[in-house]
């Protein structure tokens, strides 16, 4: 009877450990190769859309001078490429949100919206070309079409795209947490069955000792120790793989997605410079919106752009200290936003330089903004347009330089993500063969331990 119980518990240990290890592997798989990368791709939808609108407004701003900045052709090519990226990201989003009606509706709405946007944007470009509008003096009809286009972009497309990105984060989080709690439940089983196995083996040992007056039964003793090793080993492996998975999500994927959002918002924000220059009626609004987007990217308490420039200059100088974060001034909440405290907290040791570079590149963008608005205020439209087209210049512009620095930092977090997933897999890997082999050895040991006694009994 007891020997049968031992066999049953060993089989149970094997079973529960196999199931739980399988769940842990699935969790890593979904996060690492399925939902995770899809969520990252969805996050890029916003970037692609914001870039499309940025290209359009730049083309309008350039007017007849096709050689401003890195040229009209480059803007047109950039537009097409972002258009393609938006499509690609929408496909990813569609596959990630399948079955969720709210999200499917959003994907469809963005798809339809892109069509309407493209029409308005093409109309604006055509009207402006036909009117032969010089740089900075967009044809009024063209401007009317562009206002409609950018309004559509900012009230319909971008919010939905941004929300889709957030939803994909939510899907990843839910998957991750459900997976982790399934594994936690599995751990309880493995632990429980493991303890039962050890107890059964000890009981068998004691029984044989009393019944046959042997000092101890070596195979059973080895089996007992083996069962403990197996239980503790599997538990430790599951625990460490779960830890790696959480690291991959928090410091890898989540951090990378947050920074990608910062890049997308900055893309829209630098386009506000062009909108500010082409639209006198709404220039104040575009300036205010520019400040608000800037505050989202990197927050310092400032109610005007002039104050903000000064504060941002300090942040980049003070780094790795973040101004206001010591709590000494109760009115100063600290250095917040995507590039502020949260970016610093998500950093792994040795990555400070990458963030320092991003902050300094961001400051460069703001320094140029200050020059641009000063020129515009002085009525020197030509100089302002030069600054603006310089900012987005493919090779020398401060904005592409900032995006490069940001991409460098994002790549570090992406590496952390794939490394975390790999480490999680590696922690589980030995048990793929270790568990069945271990269980077989245990069973063999029990048989070896019990058989001679059975013979004696007969």
């Amino acid at each position, binding site marked *: 009877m007891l020997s049968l119980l031992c066999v049953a518990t060993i089989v149970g240990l094997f079973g529960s450990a196999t199931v739980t290890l399988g769940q842990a592997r699935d969790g890593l798989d979904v996060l690492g190769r399925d939902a995770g990368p899809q969520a990252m791709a969805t996050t890029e939808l916003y970037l692609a859309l914001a870039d499309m609108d940025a290209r359009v407004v730049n083309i309008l701003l350039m007017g007849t001078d096709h050689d401003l900045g890195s040229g009209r052709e480059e803007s047109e090519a950039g537009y097409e490429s972002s258009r393609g990226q938006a499509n690609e990201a929408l496909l990813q989003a569609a596959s990630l949100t399948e079955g969720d009606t709210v999200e499917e509706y959003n994907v469809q709405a963005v798809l339809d919206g892109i069509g309407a946007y493209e029409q308005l944007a093409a109309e604006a470009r055509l009207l402006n070309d036909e009117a032969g509008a010089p740089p900075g003096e967009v044809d009024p009809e063209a401007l009317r079409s562009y206002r409609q286009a950018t309004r559509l972009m900012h*009230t319909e497309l971008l*919010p*939905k795209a941004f929300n889709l990105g957030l939803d994909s984060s939510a899907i990843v989080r839910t998957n991750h947490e459900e997976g*982790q709690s399934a594994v*936690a439940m599995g751990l309880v089983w493995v632990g429980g069955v493991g303890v039962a196995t050890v107890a059964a083996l000890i009981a068998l040992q004691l029984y044989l000792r009393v019944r046959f007056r042997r000092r101890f039964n070596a195979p059973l003793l080895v089996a007992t120790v083996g069962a403990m090793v197996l*239980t503790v080993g599997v538990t*430790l492996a599951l625990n460490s793989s779960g830890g790696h998975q959480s690291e991959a999500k928090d410091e890898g994927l989540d951090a990378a997605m947050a920074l990608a959002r910062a890049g997308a918002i900055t893309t829209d924000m630098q386009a506000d410079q062009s909108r500010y220059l082409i639209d006198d009626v709404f220039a104040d*609004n575009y300036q205010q*919106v520019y400040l608000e987007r800037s505050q989202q990217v990197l927050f310092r308490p400032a109610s005007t752009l002039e104050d903000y420039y000064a504060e941002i200059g300090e942040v980049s100088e003070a780094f790795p200290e973040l101004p206001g974060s010591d709590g000494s001034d109760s009115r100063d909440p600290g250095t917040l936003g995507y590039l502020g405290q949260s970016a610093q907290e998500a950093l792994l040791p040795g990555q400070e330089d990458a963030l320092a570079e991003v902050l300094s590149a961001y400051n460069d963008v703001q320094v140029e903004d200050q020059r641009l608005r000063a020129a515009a205020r002085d009525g020197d439209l030509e100089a302002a347009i030069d600054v603006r087209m310089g900012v987005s210049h493919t090779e020398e512009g401060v904005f592409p330089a900032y995006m490069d620095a940001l991409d460098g930092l994002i790549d570090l977090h992406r590496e952390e993500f794939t490394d975390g997933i790999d480490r999680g897999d590696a922690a589980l890997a030995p048990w793929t063969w270790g568990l069945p082999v271990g269980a077989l050895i245990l069973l063999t040991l029990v048989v070896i331990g019990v058989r001679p006694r059975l013979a004696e009994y007969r």
Partner: protein
Amino acid sequence: MWFGRRRAWSVAALVATATLVLSACSAEDEKSLVDADSLTIGVKADQPGLGLEEGGELVGFDVDMAHEIAERMGITDVELVGVTSAEREDKLISGEVDMVVATYSITPARKTEVTFGGPYYVAKQDILVRADENEVSGVRDLAGRSVCQGEGSNSALRITDGLGIDVSELQEAESYSACIERLAEGEVDAVSTDNLILAGFLAEDPDAFQFVNNPFTDEKYGVGLPYGDVAACEAVNKAVSEMYQDETASVLLDEWFGETGLEVVRSVPQFEGCD
């Protein structure tokens, strides 16, 4: 001898296993409002059109929003309590209210203490003038005119400092309703704050005032939640998305602000994100 040692071993293994299991479980034991049976929601009690106590009952756009969101989260037992602007953080942090839907603008500073679902609407700063005023069509026309703002607000600062507009006088009143009274009596030329708040006052007396309809900032009205309740934040976002998709939000906007000439946005706002 053997026996004792072995027992020590097994006890050690048991303790180790139990500890690991417990540590794995505690991580998911965080409470979330999504699992709650009832909710206490803080709304304004003195803001016409948004949250106003009327005959012992709280009514307004925020109030309706609060009910809709709770219902879509699957919670029907909802108690509404009035909160003032100054109390919002404290009451949320102390747990006196579970949720705040009270013209609560999402700001980076507040996000360090409160998790925000939504925004459920992005209000814009705008300007209200008397109905007979026909020389103010944009914020720049406020140069040389007087502007009133509520105490502790910095909406007028955006006009003076932010845009460098030279107003003749900057008045501060104890509340925006006091500003509106001054506007009605001709003591001040314009009142500037969030357009939904202005629309609420305007709806009470549609013939007395008019909007300039030149919005120049975003005020993201968020749903204040206990800090770190990501699951509730995601549930709120889902509820808000649904409300815009099935046009509930649009109907509510019309119901409360339809007659004011306010240009409302009828598509879902860009959410803030839950972390």
